[in-house]
């Protein structure tokens, strides 16, 4: 008997670009764009947590990075669902995205953004 794939494995990057509008006011995926309230998310999937040199992360996220290490798909999914629950004290003021399918879509978009725009 095969276990079903997690929802985040089946996301649609096209739909995810529209979901990303919820993130757009504070985050960019454009190369080199910095200075917003949140870090640039280009290439975030699979990358070390809180590691961009052009952004000043909260103490809470830096501590989180010390024991979690890398943004894998499952961790991104949990964080987007409820940032304050996963990283208490995070400065990211976002209530979270309840819909697992839409989370999968935006993760697919973040994973594909590098290829889509280069």
């Amino acid at each position, binding site marked *: 008997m095969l276990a079903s794939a997690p929802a985040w494995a089946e996301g649609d990057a096209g739909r995810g670009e529209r979901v990303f*509008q*919820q993130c757009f*006011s*504070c985050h960019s995926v454009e190369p080199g764009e910095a*200075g917003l*309230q949140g870090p640039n998310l280009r290439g975030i999937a699979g990358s070390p947590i809180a590691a961009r040199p052009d952004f000043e992360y909260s103490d809470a996220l830096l501590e989180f990075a010390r024991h979690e290490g890398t943004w894998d798909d499952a961790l991104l999914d949990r964080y987007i669902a409820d940032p304050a629950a996963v990283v208490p*004290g995070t400065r990211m003021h976002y*209530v979270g995205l309840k819909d697992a399918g839409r989370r999968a879509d935006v993760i697919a978009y973040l994973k594909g953004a590098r290829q889509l725009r280069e």
Partner: protein
Amino acid sequence: MRLRWLPALCLSLILPGLAHAQSPGKAATQVYPVTPGSGPHDVAPAPDGKVWYTAQRQGALGILDPATGAVRQVPLGPDSAPHGVIQGPDAAAWITDGGQNAIVRYDPRTDQVKVWKLPEETGYVNLNTATFDGAGLYWFTGQNGFYGRLDPKTGDMKVWKAPRGRGAYGITTAPDGSVYYVSLAGSHLARIDRDTGQATVIEPLTPKQGARRVWPDSRGDLWISEWNSGQLSRHSPASGVWKSWRLPGAHPQSYAVYVDDNDMVWVTDFGANATLSFEPRTEAWASYPGTAADANVRQILGRPGEVWLPESGTDKLVVIRTGAGPS
């Protein structure tokens, strides 16, 4: 020779706040716990003595009765995540609901909730804050780079792209009925022509200051909280003159600003976890600490004699009782 004076003059406009230490605030405060987990974002005094707040994390409008401390919540709809609330000229609560990408009206007389979705072609704008102009029209900002207008009588809604893209945040109406908003990502003030809808950028004194919110005083001068620079700034539309004061803390981050009925300026500082009052005539600061760490007061509003602070990080509303208000 005259040019050599210019840098010194600019510094003199920015530095005076450094010379003034802050003192503990002396006005009485009262703390009201609200629903755990609600994350009260914005607050607005209601016409019946109660106080409204946006329970952003629970998709509801919160209603506090300060006389008893009782709270209740009114659900605003599926996917609701309300950001701003103000009282309209119709004595109803008007809410910018980022979760629903809609403007929401709550009528306290009937308990009815009415929702105006933004046009489908606009897409998600991340609704932020709103104000009524002098003619009863409702103007709002969307942090993704939009501002718009709703006519409550007809339901007609128009949405415009903000100049310079993302960042449109706090919005306010000056005593003459003019509407201004500030841009956090765009670091500017803008004035909206209410006839054409066109927004005109007004450059700040400090580049990249990260303007969060804006509020007028009784003379029509505009007070602006600057997140990136940690300053409180004043712009006079009549003269075009700016003046800035750095908040007294070590690493100030100015978030909310409000001017009360006595022209006292109130500003919150995330860096100090405190709300500060600023007396423009004496340039004196007084501090009211948050009730706990990371109180995170993101907006301030009041009525004569009362300044209300929603602590989004502690699920509490705090009132500072400043006196009886103007005679």
